[in-house]
């Protein structure tokens, strides 16, 4: 197992370096006046040149790239032109909120998607299967930012059940940065309830399309499994239907579903940006959107890089889980 993880991570280095190079080059070759934007219209030419020198923007590109990579090893992602801080510090402050929102959405998606997918497969071609299929197809087509606005409009503005924006008002001592977890760890139940009602609507808005994808994938894979010999054999032994579904088929079907879950995590984080924008969620989206407006290249590169790394990490975890669900897959191979 340890060897597999080591090998997998070594194999990722060229991809990650390539990703950094790609984003870095893009930000450097595109024309822009980020320094002028950051310093404001009053800035003199000398001030702009001085700032550009300080940021190393006049160095040759390979030198700039080398310096950037060197900085990454010591947690230096460059200066954010807008906040005036190291981009890494800004990301460290905002990432937990985005991660918490994505994680809760993924939990909702899996909790809803897998049972409904199984149910739909078991009721193949019956009315309930058709309804679930149409609902899941529509779910995939839902623009998440629009759903977020509709949920906010109905449940926050009109019915007043949920808060309109924000992550919570009750103070929670920060340990991991995930408010739900931190409030539980510190026994702060008022903080937990407050965080929970704040996260619910954004998480639902974010999770519906993902849940829909998981329903479809689970359904397809369960139906594939139904036609396998081992299921027929198990049924002819007289094993109860539910046991066959839960003990045998689900585990086999889950391997493909796991790939979907891994891929969807990336899409969740991407779409979290849109939902965060609607609910004023203080995550990386707010930071990135401000970065976009101010052409704050270091911030844009930093956020893109962190999400890329996170996505890569999720896929490594998915690979490891394959071994758990399918002993035939030898991780050391």
């Amino acid at each position, binding site marked *: 197992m340890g060897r597999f993880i080591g090998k997998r991570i070594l194999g990722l280095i060229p991809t990650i370096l390539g990703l950094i190079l790609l984003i870095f080059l893009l930000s450097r070759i595109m024309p822009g006046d980020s320094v002028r934007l950051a310093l404001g219209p009053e800035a003199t030419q000398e001030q702009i040149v001085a700032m550009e020198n300080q940021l190393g923007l006049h160095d040759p590109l390979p030198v700039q790239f080398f310096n950037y990579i060197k900085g990454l090893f010591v947690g230096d992602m460059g200066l954010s032109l807008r906040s005036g801080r190291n981009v890494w510090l800004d990301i460290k402050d905002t990432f937990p909120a985005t991660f918490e929102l994505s994680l809760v959405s993924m939990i909702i998606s899996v909790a809803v998607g897998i049972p409904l997918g199984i149910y739909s497969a078991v009721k193949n071609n019956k009315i309930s299967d058709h309804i679930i299929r149409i609902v899941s197809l529509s779910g995939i*087509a839902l623009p998440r930012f629009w759903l977020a606005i509709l949920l906010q409009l109905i449940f926050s503005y009109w019915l007043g059940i949920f808060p309109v924006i924000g992550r919570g008002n009750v103070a929670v001592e920060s340990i991991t940065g995930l408010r739900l977890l931190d409030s539980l760890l510190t026994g702060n139940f008022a903080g937990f309830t407050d965080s929970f009602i704040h996260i619910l609507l954004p998480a639902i808005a974010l999770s519906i399309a993902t849940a829909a994808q998981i329903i479809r994938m689970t359904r397809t894979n369960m139906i594939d499994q139904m036609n396998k010999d081992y299921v027929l054999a198990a049924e002819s032994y007289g094993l109860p239907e539910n046991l066959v579904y839960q003990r045998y088929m689900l585990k086999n079907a889950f391997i493909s579903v796991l790939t979907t879950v891994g891929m969807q995590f990336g899409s969740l984080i991407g779409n979290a940006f849109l939902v965060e924008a609607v609910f004023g969620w203080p995550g990386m989206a707010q930071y990135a959107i401000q970065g976009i407006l101010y052409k704050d290249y270091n911030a844009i590169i930093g956020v893109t890089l962190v999400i890329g790394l996170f996505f890569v990490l999720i896929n490594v975890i998915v690979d490891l889980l394959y071994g758990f669900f399918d002993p035939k897959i030898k991780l050391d191979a």
Partner: protein
Amino acid sequence: MEANVKERKAPGKIRKLLKNKLTLVGLIIVALVVFAAIFADFIAPHPSDVTGSIDFSLMNQLPSSQYIFGTDEAGRDIFSRVLFGARYSLIMGVVVLTVAIGIGVPLGLIAGFWGGKVNSVIMRLTDIFLSIPSIILAMAVAAIMEPSLFNSMVAISFGWWPWFTRLVQAETLKIKNEQFILASEGIGASKWRIAFIEILPNCLSTIIVKASTDIGFVILTGASLGFLGLGAQPPAPEWGTMVAEGRVYLPTMWWQTTFPGLAILVTVLGFNLLGDGLRDFFDVRVD
């Protein structure tokens, strides 16, 4: 005689495709969207409202028989603007996929058929692009450029071609050891000829299915960029941009965000239904 058989076969195939009611619904939706996009000038009740025209006497009207989707803060008819918006979505879908196919398919053919180092280089390159969620890559690229419809299409295409490369490379690997390919090699056909004349046609159904299942997602991504202000700029009646503009007037003027969003949902659903039907019809897996 042979021609007769073919003629009778073709409508039969279409009938088989449309036997699935959901596919038929998808086809009808797509046909309506295409119709709206082409004939918006003639069917929109207020075609002049597409531009930045302002009529304060008509501003913020609730949906009624005269303005079925209501009017916006500048007194423009939202229904007319939604009809014109179909153009932006279709252009987005078609242009992005054309570029993605134009770059991705040849690279996939070359990687799969040439193999060796060429394959390694191309596939590692696609790995880099696929190591990041496509919507994030599109946002990053769009963020670096000036916001416009054209630049948002460039940004989305930038992250979309590797999917086609990966798909076509896998298909090419499957086909390259078939007898007819070995025969072509045997009689001395050039590699380019084999790749583009012999192998490509055999990948077409997979490419078509992939494109048809992707177009809805491209439209969705385009609308998302529009919503973030990274796509078409106001007063262009792009659906995502319209949702973002209408958001300012919530919760009172709910119709300004609701109808453009609904248009995105219905259009993407239509394309997805049609894409699903085509996938079952050709019986290929593209996921």
